[in-house]
Structure formats: C-alpha cells, structure tokens
C-alpha cells in the first residue's frame, strides 16, 4: 500500500471486529514509526499498548466512573481551543452531526448520543488501545512531533490492513488510566488510539467526513 492509499483509506473507525491483533504485528509498526522526525531528534513520544486483561480492567474502571459525569473529568490540557471563529467553529459541529445522522440519532435524543460517546471508553470494541504520554517539559513544537509520530503509526497500521481511531476523549479519564497503567508523574497524558480490524460495513464507519478545499487552507506563490 502506498502512502497515498494509506492516507485515503484511513478514517477514524468507531466499530471494530472482535478479532485480536498479534503483538508481532504491532511491534513491526511501532519499530518503523521510531524513524519519525522530531526537532533536535527529541523523540518526545511514549506509549503503552494495552490488550486483554489490563485493557478490560481500564474499561471497567472508567465504566464505573462515567456516572459521576463532569465531576470525574481530569484532562491535563484543553482539548478544545477557548475561542473559535469562522470555519473552525463550523467544523467542530459538522463532523459530529454527520456521524449522528449516519446513526439516525437526532439532536434531541441526548441519551443515545451519550451512549455513542461512551463507546469511546470501550475503544469502540477494538482489541488494542495505545495510550500516549509525554514529559511535561515538552513545548508546543514537541506536540507537533508527537503528531508526526502518531500519523506515522496510523498510516503504517493501514499498511498492515489494520484500522484505528485517535481518541483525545481518553484524556478526560487520565486519573483512572494512571490507576491501571504506570505513567510517570512528570508525564502528561495525551490521547488513546484504538487499534484493530474495522467493521467497514458499520454505518458509523461510512458517513462522509468533510474537509476544507485545498485552496482554502493553502496559498500558492510563484508557480
């Protein structure tokens, strides 16, 4: 699979098949991803790959926490920028509405929407969850480095026929994550990545995800 096909066929998968992923396959992906670039060769990324018993333990702990609502949230960074304007404000809602429309869940049906959101915390049925953390000393450009590494992982997974969903949602339960997985106190928890074999026929994996036009995001000079 070339890069172009990997980028084009990658989408955030929110329904996975009940089929395990071999550790050897994940090691192959993560080994190659180590070659991702970073400013000053910092390599600021760190991760834990969870499956089986410890993953179930995390699911159970978070499931028991969800009823506490917002009180239990403990994200260590702002997931959304405070003030958004123009296309950014529009986009935030467009993708959510597209997803709920594909699932046939209207805006008023808050209970169903809450259930769909809670699927995040079962990694949408994925057999593997990667938890990403980084030293608190890292500045903004190192977050970009982590993004370069993350996209490398997502694209290499496609090459293995695997699917993924990057999930910042896990950040709201970082305290519970730290109860199950040892993450150093001087590290910040960033996100999860659900990994597995996507159910490519599921409606939630098939709605169109809009993107802004090429010339809206990029200007061209001198060609």
């Amino acid at each position, binding site marked *: 699979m070339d890069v172009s096909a990997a980028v084009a066929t990658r989408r955030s998968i929110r329904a996975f098949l009940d089929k395990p992923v071999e550790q050897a396959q994940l090691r192959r992906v993560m080994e190659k991803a180590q070659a991702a670039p970073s400013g000053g060769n910092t390599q*600021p990324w760190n991760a834990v790959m969870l499956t089986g018993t410890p993953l179930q333990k995390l699911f159970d702990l978070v499931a028991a926490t969800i009823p506490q609502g917002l009180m239990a949230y403990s994200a260590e960074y702002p997931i959304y920028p405070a003030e958004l304007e123009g296309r950014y404000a529009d986009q935030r809602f467009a*993708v959510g509405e597209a997803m709920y429309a594909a699932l046939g869940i209207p805006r008023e049906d808050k209970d169903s929407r809450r259930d769909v959101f809670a699927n995040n915390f079962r990694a949408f049925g994925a057999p593997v969850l990667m938890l990403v953390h980084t030293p608190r000393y890292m500045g903004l450009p190192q977050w970009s480095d982590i993004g370069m590494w993350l996209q490398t992982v997502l694209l290499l997974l496609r090459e293995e026929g695997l699917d993924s969903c990057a999930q910042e949602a896990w950040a709201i339960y970082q305290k519970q994550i730290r109860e199950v997985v040892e993450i150093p106190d001087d590290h910040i928890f960033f996100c999860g990545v659900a990994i597995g074999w996507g159910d490519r026929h599921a409606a939630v994996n098939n709605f169109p995800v809009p993107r802004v036009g*090429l010339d809206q995001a990029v200007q061209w000079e001198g060609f």
Partner: protein
Amino acid sequence: MTKATTVTEAMLTRRSIRAFSDRPVPLELIRKVMDTARWTPSGCNFQPWEGAVLTGAPLHELQERMRAAAPQDPKEYSWSDPEVLPECLARLHQVGADMYAAMNIERADKAARGDFMAQNLVSFDAPAVLLVYFPRVMGPPQWSDVGMWLQSVMLLLRDEGLDSCPQEFLSIHARLIKDFLGVSDESHIFFCGIAIGYRVEDDPVNQFDRKREELDSKVRFLGFE
C-alpha cells in the same frame, strides 16, 4: 531517490534533506500531495493547518528579505524546552555531531557551522518551500494535529519521489514571513517551513546515520500473550 511504493518504504527513505538539487518541482505534484494530505485526521475535524507554498521569484524575494533581517525578538515560540531533560539534550548534541562530522566540520569551527546554519534561510536550496501557520488560539492537541498533517505531507512527497526538510528554524523570521504572505500576526502563529525538492543523493549531509531510541524504551506492551 526513487518513488516510495509502500508506507514502509516512505518511512525508510524519508530523512531531513539538507542539500537539494536545482531540479524544479512541478506544481501539479505538490498540489496532488497537498490535496491528499487534507485527509489527515484532527480532533473535532478542526483541520487547524494553514500554509503557503512558494517557489521561484516570490521565494527568492522572501529569502532576500530574511537574509537582510535580524532574528526577531522575542521568539515566535520556544523550540528548546526539552533541553532541560539530559536525554533530550544528548540526542540534540548527537544529531548535530553526526551531521557536522559527515561534512568534515570540526566542533571548534564556529564560522563553518554558522555558514551551514545560514543555509536554513535558503531552505538548503530547495526549489519550493511550504510555510506553515495557524490561528494562535490553537492549543497543544491542535499542534499535534498540525504535526500529523506535516508527516502526511512529508510521506506523500516520498510517493512522488520528492524529498523534504522540516525547518522550525524559519520561525526566527516569523513576523517577516507573515507580513510577506499577508497573514495576520495578531491572529496567527508561524510554526515552520518544509523545504521541498529533490535530494542530492551523494551529498554526505544527506547520508549520515540517524539514531533513534530502542522501541522498548518508548513503547510498553501489556496484556499480550
């Protein structure tokens, strides 16, 4: 370097290129790359990335202006925060030492090192440069989104036989660049450039060994049989 036919090959053959040939980059190739890169994921589908691709006369004019200007003060952002961590400082020193050794430039030869650093201003003679900026309201997770997009671009360039070098260095002239492009300094932060072109295959600066941490020091596997 031939085109990559797999993601793996793109990863293995991508490296930060610091000597480019003068072979021009066709607009349609870069447009194809940037068009596909739009499918990069981002939290809430914000797609926080914005940029300008420059070549030819406008690029040379910008480079002339940067050459004539002093680095801005204060900095646009800090890129050296990780240096408080000994292991990060060691990695930075190591990559610098390996690069200068490849070029036979001695550690004490500050003039030669300075001349090479100045090559950043002309993006190592790359014929095209992508300049990356985005709204200042974007926080850490959106910087990660921008990074995902940048890596899409760099890997997609390998698909087309093209090479790149990400350059945070250009942020020393962030305000000048934004002014040149007509981008608001008030609303937008300038992040980096990406030099784009074809590598000079046999230049030693494009050939030194790159070092990475062992996988098991970066990724732990729990619960696998």
